[in-house]
């Protein structure tokens, strides 16, 4: 019972204090009162009693309906699981200073776009393409920053993406950013999850943190996409360094190796220009196109109309009654009513 009650709420619960007024029709009547010499003189009339009860009930319904209407009842929003196209996408965006340079490694000028501006433009199109996608945005440089928690409000996500081509901060600290981006996935199971990692460089992941990250990836198992915005002339993910092959010498390659070793679906996209970024995003979108169960949060439903409907129904009965009311006093104006007759409800 309480479970069912929990489905309903009131926007203005204070108005419910007026609800006792609905009992008024039980003790007062809006109909004409007539003094009759003796109530006992009237024959018992089942129909009259029914009509009286109906009118009282209509009065109760009218007042209760109006008071409930004032309190604005609603049915609380609920979560319904459906099948649709969409995914939980956690975006991890590099905000280090180099993101503000072009793909050629220069300061943007004229028609040239910075890497941040290109990703901003292309990601803004990606968000909202499919209405059931959920997005979370995490930024990182030296420290990870939670920009937006997982949400279906695409307008807000676009506002967060609009901020990514502002001047960036210092360095690239991937490990903590990855940990925070992973923590953005909720505990809901059965939802397709994608971690979209956008950076123009990599950094060494501390071996101590590696184990923790491995455990987190194994637990959450997202599809991992690394969109590597490569500056022209800088090493590619595949390039082996000339000398010793250490994470310090080739952080990109070793981050890629680390991702490969996680045992989760992983793809790296190397983009050397805005067009390559657009292609990569289109491919990610195509890959995340499986039908997946998603949770639809139904907004709360306003039930105020029902309350006013109830009130209108009760009022309609009362109005008809008022219209069809007999007026015995008109007749009795000639006869003079008996002064000491007890007043009773005429019904």
């Amino acid at each position, binding site marked *: 019972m309480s479970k069912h009650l929990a489905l309903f709420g009131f926007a203005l619960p204070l108005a419910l204090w007026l609800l006792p007024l609905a009992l008024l029709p039980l003790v007062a009547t809006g109909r004409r009162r007539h003094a009759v010499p003796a109530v006992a003189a009237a024959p018992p009339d089942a129909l009259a009693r029914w009509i009286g009860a109906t009118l009282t009930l209509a009065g109760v319904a009218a007042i209760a309906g109006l008071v409930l209407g004032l309190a604005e009842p609603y049915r609380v929003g609920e979560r319904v699981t459906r099948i649709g196209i969409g995914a939980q996408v956690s975006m991890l965006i590099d905000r280090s200073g180099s993101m503000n340079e072009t793909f050629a490694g220069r300061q943007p000028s004229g028609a040239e776009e910075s890497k941040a501006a290109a990703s901003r433009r292309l990601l803004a199109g990606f968000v909202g393409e499919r209405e059931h996608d959920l997005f979370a945005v995490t930024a990182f440089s030296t420290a990870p920053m*939670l920009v937006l928690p997982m949400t279906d409000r695409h*307008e*807000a996500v676009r506002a967060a993406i609009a901020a990514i081509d502002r001047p960036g901060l210092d360095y690239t600290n991937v490990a903590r950013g990855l940990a925070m981006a992973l923590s953005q996935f909720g505990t809901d199971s059965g939802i397709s999850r994608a971690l979209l990692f956008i950076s123009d460089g990599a950094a060494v992941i501390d071996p101590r943190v590696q184990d923790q990250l491995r455990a987190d990836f194994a637990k959450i198992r997202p599809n991992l996409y690394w969109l590597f915005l490569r500056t022209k002339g800088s090493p590619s993910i595949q390039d082996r360094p000339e000398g010793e092959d250490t994470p310090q010498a080739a952080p990109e390659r070793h981050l890629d190796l680390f991702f490969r070793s996680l045992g989760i679906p992983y793809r790296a996209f190397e983009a050397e220009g805005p067009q390559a970024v657009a292609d990569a995003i289109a491919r990610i979108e195509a890959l995340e196109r499986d039908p997946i169960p998603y949770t639809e949060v139904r907004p709360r439903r306003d039930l105020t109309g029902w309350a006013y409907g109830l009130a209108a129904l009760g*009022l309609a009965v009362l109005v008809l009654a008022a219209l069809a*009311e007999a007026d015995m006093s008109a007749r009795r104006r000639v006869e003079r009513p008996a*002064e000491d007759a007890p007043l009773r409800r005429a019904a």
Partner: protein
Amino acid sequence: MSAALPLARNLRAPRFLALALALALAGAALVVPAVPFTRTGAKLLAVIDITGSMNVRDYARDGRPESRLDRAKAALRRLVAELPCGSRVALGLFTERRPFLLFEPIETCGDFAPLDGTLASLDWRMAWEGDSRVAAGLYRAIDMAAGLGTDLVFVTDGQESPPLPGGEPPAFEGKPGAVRGLIVGAGGYALSPIPRYDDRGREKGFYGEADVPQENRFGPPPADAETREGYNPRNAPFGSAAAQGTEHLSSVREPYLKRLAAATGLAYAHLDGPDDLERPVRAAATPRALPGALDLRPVLGGMALAMVLATLGAGRADALRRRLPRILSPSEKT
């Protein structure tokens, strides 16, 4: 029987009219759409200081100490919840010497959940550097607000770290008052110790006097340097003694913040309770016309209810009126 009904009389009876009006009002409440009208809302850029001194626990909530950052977060969350729908809020972090924009203005009702979620998860660990150059950060935040076309709410305790050379903030080069807004001073008025954290983010005590720079010794020495002990123009222009002071303790630097506010044309308010922000923000922010919707149903329903109660009351009063004269003075006409 129906022929005997005094229809015409009933139609004119006040009770019928009142009930019919109530019915019409209830019916109108069923169908009337929300009326569009214009309200005043706000468009804000909230920049929140997440430097170390904001971790000072000099507020109390439910008898437990609460850090300035937590109080500021609570106040901003309350503010966002109280702003009229259609208001927009952008959020930035301040540390080092500049604000970092997390997102451009977001609508506070429809997108309340992500906005509130972000505010709730603000953490000092998001800081990318340890410095706290408040004046520089404030000036840049003003520029940022101008770029976004918003007003500014800048929450800070005003503690410059490292201390300003000579205690003088850099000059404000913008036009004072071009961006409206509010500086919110967070923190108590008494000095409190600043918690200290290790490189894994665990608290490990408080800053001591020797742990933080007590005086800015870059640039030219202050005017009183010559009177200092051990002063030597070449070898010890700041004197020979180690600087002493209370920079390792923190309180809200209200006079300094008020000075910055006066120089930049912003208002100043001190942050006390978590619901303290709404009024000063409304006073300081540019009122912005927002399309709103007015729900007429409560008015219609209230009037209908009054009508129904009046008919009941009239019936009651009628009965009383008929009885009362008899009780009080039978001859008196009412």
